[in-house]
């Protein structure tokens, strides 16, 4: 093994796993060292600082669990919304198609934060929806549903015309065509981006702190205002999100690899 191959990935190939692991470990520890040097120096990380935050570990814990709950519920609802809207966009009924298109464009064209503020303080208020958690899950589902709708639609459209022709010739009904032909093939196509969307959903749920839902981010902010500790509050916050999103990111990579071998 030459000296340069310790640094360079071979053209059109991969370096051995231990070399990649070594570099990952090195980069990680350098980053950690940098963090400690920069932030530890200015903000004075002390044993006492961590101790004062540790007392509020229950707040972190319940916030983290609430984030998971919100994400899971929103995932389910956004999948339902996404599926319905994707089908609506393919519908022959023009008003339905226009409505679906408007929904997707409005949601994708505005920031989530603006949607949260508008839907919670204006719409939810107007219809008398007081329950923050319910409103939060609905808003997040509406937001994510628009993106899922586009993914599902592209998945459906990725199924070749010849497959639909074949299904038609066999005598499948529309429902059977979706069930036996379109759904299994589309699902394969969109599984990796779907996993990515779920990771986004988890991260985006942090914005719900703005309307006072006691999820993970708000929990960290509350502990911060009680202890005046920043690093000790916000480092666990970042790590807590990574603990949720990294496994999903890994999963989507595995899925992608599997799909490549199967086709």
């Amino acid at each position, binding site marked *: 093994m030459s000296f340069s191959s310790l640094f360079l990935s071979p053209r059109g190939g991969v370096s051995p796993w231990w070399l990649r692991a070594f570099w990952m470990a090195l980069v990680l520890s350098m980053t950690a060292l940098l963090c400690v040097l920069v932030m530890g120096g200015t903000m004075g990380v002390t044993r006492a600082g961590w101790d004062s935050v540790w007392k509020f570990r229950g707040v972190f814990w319940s916030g983290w669990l609430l984030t998971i709950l919100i994400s899971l519920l929103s995932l389910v609802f956004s999948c339902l919304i996404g599926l319905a809207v994707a089908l609506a966009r393919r519908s022959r009924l023009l008003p339905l198609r226009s409505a679906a298109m408007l929904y997707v464009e409005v949601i994708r064209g505005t920031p989530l934060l603006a949607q949260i503020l508008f839907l919670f303080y204006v719409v939810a208020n107007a219809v008398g929806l007081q329950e923050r958690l319910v409103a939060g899950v609905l808003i997040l589902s509406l937001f994510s549903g628009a993106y899922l709708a586009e993914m599902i639609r592209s998945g459906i459209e990725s199924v070749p015309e*010849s*497959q639909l*022709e*074949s299904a*038609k*010739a*066999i*005598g*499948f*009904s529309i429902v*059977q065509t979706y069930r*036996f*032909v379109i759904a*299994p*093939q589309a699902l*394969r196509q969109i599984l990796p981006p779907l996993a990515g969307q779920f990771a986004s959903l988890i991260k985006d749920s942090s914005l719900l702190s703005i309307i006072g839902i006691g999820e993970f981010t708000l929990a960290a902010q509350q502990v911060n205002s009680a202890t005046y500790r920043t690093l000790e509050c916000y480092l666990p916050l970042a790590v807590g999100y990574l603990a949720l999103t990294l496994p999903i990111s890994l999963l989507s990579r595995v899925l992608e690899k599997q799909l490549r071998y*199967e*086709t």
Partner: protein
Amino acid sequence: MKLEALDITKVFGSGSQKRRVLDSLTLRVDFPHVLALLGPSGGGKSTLLRVIAGLETPEEGTVSLDGIRMPSEERSLRNYRSSLGVVFQSFNLFPHMTALRNTELPLTAVHGLDAATARKRALGIMERLGLADHAGKMPAQLSGGQRQRVAIARALASQPRFLLFDEPTSALDPEMTAEVLALIAELREFGTPMLLVTHEMGFARKVADQVAFLAGGRVLEQAEASDFFANPRTEEARRFLAKVLAY
């Protein structure tokens, strides 16, 4: 069996792009064993096959089988389609199912057979077509010729009134083409009438009983295959045969 296509007009595109692919076409066949649709590209052969299969609705005209008109209402049209077997030019097998599943699914989902009967029938057909060892394979694991065999097995399993082949070998290399053509010739044993659109003149000559020659969206000539090849009556057919048989 009697097939009648009367005054069929099919237009593709709109505005200035409008093209009459079938132009008041009429075809009456007392179905022989094998009818070949021949003619130049763009002459309307495949479109006619798709109209007869119930996959394409013509702007004008009617198709009837044994004097019964092809229905236009979606549900009955679905029944009509499922009573025929279509084999397409490209590989239209479902890539996420094994060869066996591809063959038996229409039997349970469309023809209402129970799972055990469907499997037995699918396996029986596959065995007759030399696919016994490949039943458990996915389409991607099969060669082009084998895939086309599975497609034929799938079409035959539902015991169709007749089989329609839309250029069944145009996506295959010469060796596999020969293999699939040999199989289609063997299908005579099954007794199912066949309608085929093909570019393989040698094959059509050998296998077809009757020939319909299409050009410009019309049937210009319809004859016994031996007559047609020996003695084409229209100028267009003569020119066409001279061109394709030149090499």
